[in-house]
């Protein structure tokens, strides 16, 4: 079911009620996670809440940056936060920022700026702005551009990871083992003369496939396993494992951030496409979460991957290929996971933590024993600084 259809299914006006044997592939208000502006809002809110509670997760360093929750680049909504943005911009005027429309996908409407004049029309004081442009369709987010991405073979890439959520409360999510990297066809350069060249900066296949050098055999894609092999071989095992652990961490944190506001309708499950960029200090950044990750394929390998993805997703969401019953406990047996691995299971985490099938870092568990295991987690996390 597409997001448009979901909107109408769950809209108050239609009054459509899903029956017990109907399961749908989106949560009613998934946009809390999948719209760029709402995702950032929720994460900011979540961080503030943790800070208020005095949770060790919200600890900050001497510069006021969150130690464990700083995984989204500095972002502002436009035009709402325009003045805040300007203040930040002036602090480092040589930095580059990326403008993204809130509601679009596939790299549409994205551009880079390094001068305030380039975004004049979002200024609240500007004569051209009006309240019309504050409708959700025209809203933009502006984020600090990561101009030091990790390069391989001189090229920029990002990670596309698939995460299945079967329930938000308690949170139960699965990570697909076969994610991939999307490479740009052109060599990366932070040079200001190439800010307009989308082939250098945007990794979306929808954009890259129009480039001259696009190759239809491999599609500019690498498996995550290749990435792992390369990083382990050239950087070492510890830093590579830490990187992947951090990636899992930020995915779980982003889900926890929206869990309280998600409509945890028991008829729903959802498979998200997470976009992550790794910078040259091997720090991962969450760029965005997609509710309808592309299920079309650009290469033969891709087709196999997407086919298996859909197959495995449905096996978890709807057990045994039987008529679904939304009242089931949403705990599929291990055998049906296919290429998915349990990323986080809140129920298990709150129960006996000893034999969980989570990533080995105890720091990822946040249950009643949150305090104690956090300490061992923290020691691991802080060793990078």
């Amino acid at each position, binding site marked *: 079911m597409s997001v448009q259809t979901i909107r109408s299914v769950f809209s108050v006006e239609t009054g459509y009620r899903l029956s017990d044997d109907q399961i749908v592939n989106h949560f009613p208000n998934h946009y809390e996670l999948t719209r760029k502006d709402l995702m950032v809002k929720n994460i900011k809110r979540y961080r503030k809440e943790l800070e208020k509670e005095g949770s060790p997760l919200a600890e900050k360093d001497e510069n006021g940056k969150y130690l464990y929750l700083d995984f989204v680049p500095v972002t502002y909504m436009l035009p709402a936060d325009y003045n805040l943005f300007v203040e930040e911009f002036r602090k480092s005027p040589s930095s580059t920022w990326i403008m993204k429309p809130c509601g679009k996908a596939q790299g549409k409407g994205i551009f880079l700026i390094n001068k305030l004049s380039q975004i004049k029309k979002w200024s609240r004081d500007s004569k051209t702005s009006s309240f019309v442009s504050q409708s959700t369709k025209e809203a933009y987010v502006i984020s600090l551009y990561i101009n030091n991405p990790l390069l*391989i*073979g*001189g*090229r920029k890439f990002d990670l596309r990871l698939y995460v299945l959520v079967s329930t938000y409360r308690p949170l139960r999510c699965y990570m697909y083992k076969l994610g991939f990297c999307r*490479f740009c066809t*052109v*060599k990366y350069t932070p040079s200001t003369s190439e800010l307009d060249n989308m082939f250098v900066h945007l990794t979306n296949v929808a954009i890259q496939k129009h480039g001259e*050098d696009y*190759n239809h*055999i*491999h599609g*500019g*894609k*690498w*498996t995550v*396993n*290749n990435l792992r*092999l*390369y990083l*382990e*071989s*050239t950087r*070492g*095992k510890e830093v*590579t494992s830490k990187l992947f652990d951090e990636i899992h961490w930020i995915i779980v944190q982003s889900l926890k951030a929206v869990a309280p506001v998600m409509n945890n309708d028991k008829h729903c499950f959802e498979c998200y496409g997470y976009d992550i960029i790794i910078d040259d200090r091997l720090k991962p950044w969450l760029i965005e979460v997609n509710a309808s990750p592309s299920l079309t394929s650009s290469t033969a*390998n891709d087709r196999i991957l997407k086919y298996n993805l859909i197959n495995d997703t449905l096996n978890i969401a709807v057990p045994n290929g039987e008529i679904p019953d939304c009242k089931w406990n949403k705990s599929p047996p291990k055998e049906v996971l296919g290429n998915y691995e349990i990323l986080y299971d809140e129920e298990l985490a709150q129960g006996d933590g000893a034999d969980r099938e989570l990533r080995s870092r105890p720091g990822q568990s946040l249950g009643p024993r949150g305090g104690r295991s956090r300490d061992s987690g923290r020691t691991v996390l802080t060793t990078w600084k």
Partner: protein
Amino acid sequence: MALTVLRSTGQGSWEKRILKSLNSMCTELSIPLARKRPVGEQKELLNKWNEMGTDEPDLSLFRPVYAPKDFLEVLINLRNPNYENGDSLSFRTHLGLIQVPLKVKDIPELKEFFVELGLTTGQLGIDDSTQVPPELFENEHVRIGQKVLAEQDSAAAQQYVRQGSPTALRAELWALILNISSQPEDILYYEQLKTNVIQHDLLVDSLIYKDVKLTASNDDYYFVFEDYLYQVLLCFSRDTSVLGHFAYSSASPPKSYIRGKLGLEEYAVFYPPNGVIPFHGFSMYVAPLCFLYHEPSKLYQIFREMYVRFFFRLHSISSHPSGIVSLCLLFETLLQTYLPQLFYHLREIGAQPLRISFKWMVRAFSGYLATDQLLLLWDRILGYNTLEILAGKILAAAVFAFRAVNLMEVTSLAAAEAVLADLSTLKVMPLLQIFLFATVT
């Protein structure tokens, strides 16, 4: 005896053929074998040094000088004129394509030689899989590896990698075994080669471009490293130090004569300067190394050393046990001896096994196995200092054994090729172990 015969007939005529092919390409396309670049072009190339892949010269008229299958035809037609004395009875019953009676190891001898690959010894590629707890083997193995590196013991490193190298230690271990240490003079040497590339254009360069574009650029694993391949291979062809390996190779470097001075030795130069004419797939020798080294001069040194120790044997004719002829013979013998039914069946349907496995062996399996498996295989080449395992003539035989059931059912060469087309899911070490140590002899 066999060595001289092969050297003078087989390799000699093969070399003549390659050179002829190169020269005719040169005349047909009216391109000189070498020319000095005008200053403007030099500047441009220097600017583009890190992204030569985006440069798209018109390569449509270039063809690879030869491909592995051409080479195979030559090997098949090798004969040893001394053979009539027929001292090896068993050879008379040899039904494979190779008709030269070289001595190759049999399974008992192989078992002894490759004893560390036995079933009772821990291996990376088997004992580090997720079902096996790391305490059993992996952790200890890693600890030993770190110790070997700390002590910078090259011989110990070579012994160590026979059981496979942990991914994080591999780059350093290989460098230790190959005695590569990136001194300032090495970096300077590489820079000098780079300058040569900038200043002169060689016909061979176009062959290299074409090869990379045809092979590595289309490979799921290696396309990312395309630009590194140019940086290594273009320098490689100008590296005269590579000529040194011809002293122990049965091959000799092709010579070219300055225009108008044909036959006059004082006007002869080696062409290309390193004496190695690349063939279709040559760039795949370098590609896997890009997963280990991202600094061009180090990558270069490692590749060069691997080439002069191992890879050159895969495309020249000699009687050396690691030479391609011996490897082919070893493969055919193993297959015929231990899987006779399969062997006969494939022969019957016109699918001589060597025709299928030859290309794997010539490329040292690069581009056919998944990279992590390939690296495990190359660990063993370095560890045992021989290609017998890789060129896996043994591995090739093991692959056939593994897919035997399917192969018994095919009825054409094309179908056999299809069964063996995709090796990307194979796990190298279990295959080798089963074939060497678990086959009933």
